């Protein structure tokens, strides 16, 4: 099935079996292997990408359902020469060990910070209150991204630092 997805600013046309997930389209068809396949069931968050600016699990989405959508993967976030502030913060704080979850953590952080600045609720914030970027708020809002090396304290520190730089 013919599908065109705008990936990291570039229109990419594909002819896909409808079974192909967005994650497999990115990794196997477009060779963008930054997005990782961990659990392939929406439980680990390693496959997190931004679709039209919103973070989702790319493993639980069919590529053919994204015809015309704008997808941002870790490859579109920054380059070794021009790191995104969140990437710099993850390096500075050593916010990983094996690094497998890191692309998902970083894409998720981008989505999370934009949700937070839009005032989106979470269970850490009562429905009437404006959320602030506390440690507890970061942990709750990033709970869809698992780090099996358990670099969580460094990830929280990196996100707080990056948010200051990006403010």
């Amino acid at each position, binding site marked *: 099935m013919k599908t065109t997805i705008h990936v990291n600013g570039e229109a990419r046309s594909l002819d896909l079996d*409808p079974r192909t997930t967005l994650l497999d389209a990115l990794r196997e068809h477009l060779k963008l292997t930054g997005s990782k396949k961990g659990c392939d*069931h*929406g439980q680990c968050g390693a496959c*997190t990408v931004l679709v039209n600016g919103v973070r989702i699990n790319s493993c*639980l989405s069919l590529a053919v*359902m994204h015809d015309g959508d704008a997808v941002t993967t870790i490859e579109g976030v920054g380059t070794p020469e021009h790191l995104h502030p969140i990437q710099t913060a993850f390096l500075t704080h050593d916010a990983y060990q094996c690094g497998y979850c890191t692309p998902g953590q970083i894409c998720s952080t981008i989505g*999370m910070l934009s949700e937070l600045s839009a*005032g989106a609720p979470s269970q850490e914030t009562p*429905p009437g209150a404006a959320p602030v970027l506390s440690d507890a708020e970061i942990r709750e809002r990033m709970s*869809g991204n698992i780090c099996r090396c358990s670099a969580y304290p460094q990830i929280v520190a990196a996100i707080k630092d990056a948010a200051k730089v990006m403010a």
Partner: protein
Amino acid sequence: MRAFTYERAGDAKAAVKAAASTPGARFIAGGTNLLDLMKLEIETPAHLIDVSRLNMATIEATLDGGLRIGAATSNSTVAADPQVRARYPVLSQAIVAGGSPQLRNKASVGGNLLQRTRCAYFYDTSKPCNKRAPRTGCSALEGLNRNAAIFGATDHCIATHTSDMAVALTALGANVETLMPSGQSRTLPMLVLHRLPGETPEIETCLETGELITAVVLPPPPPGGQIYRKVRDRASYAGGLASVAVAGRQVALGMVAHKPWRASAVETALASGASPAEAIAVELEGASPLGRNDFKLPLVARLAAAAISEANGRGA
């Protein structure tokens, strides 16, 4: 994943017509639960009808002072909606208690209502399960049933409905609007949408083949405070062991039955002057725990009593 054909519906009428006339057809919107189950070949649709781009993702006030939420609206959008947060905070709270942010960004309102149980034997295709493979037996009866139902279960199925959102909608007395293959629409109270397992746990709702949920309609909020409380094995991103939604004097319990459980005995007792603790005790007289899930009785008793007290302290 089994092979399937895919089409993007042009409008809701075309979608229900295609669903009724194509054997093995299923609707897909967010797909977060359906695709998970398709990968495990627990769901094996022959044809998917994409309804995610239909004009069903708006939230608008109704003439009677309620709110109409389009079925394709994402869970995150509903939770963040200013009208929902101001007038139906229990709904916002329930939604952000479920899944992860990534899942809530993708999952639709209609799909949330139709999500399948997380019973371990429903997921384990090597084991009997009446819900997954009718008339093969229920492995949970003698198995890992710590999270099983305490209300309305049968020997055929003791699984629970796991949606948080649906518990809040049940407490709020919401209605579900649908479009049937005939082109007629109808309105179903949340209480009627889901079924108890009986002898056919594979049939989870009263929806007909091809019938599409188009919206959820909230009546004006009842007087009084609102609150959603959920207990689970870890602080975030875990299915619940029990939950309670309170909207004034209206109370629903979650993860205790095959459907969101409107606690009508609690409501009757509260109306006749019982304390929250006395009222939930009356409801729990009708519970049938199995041993491993006995803990749900004191858990629900304390959870519901605390939530009802807190909501009514906030309310009025």
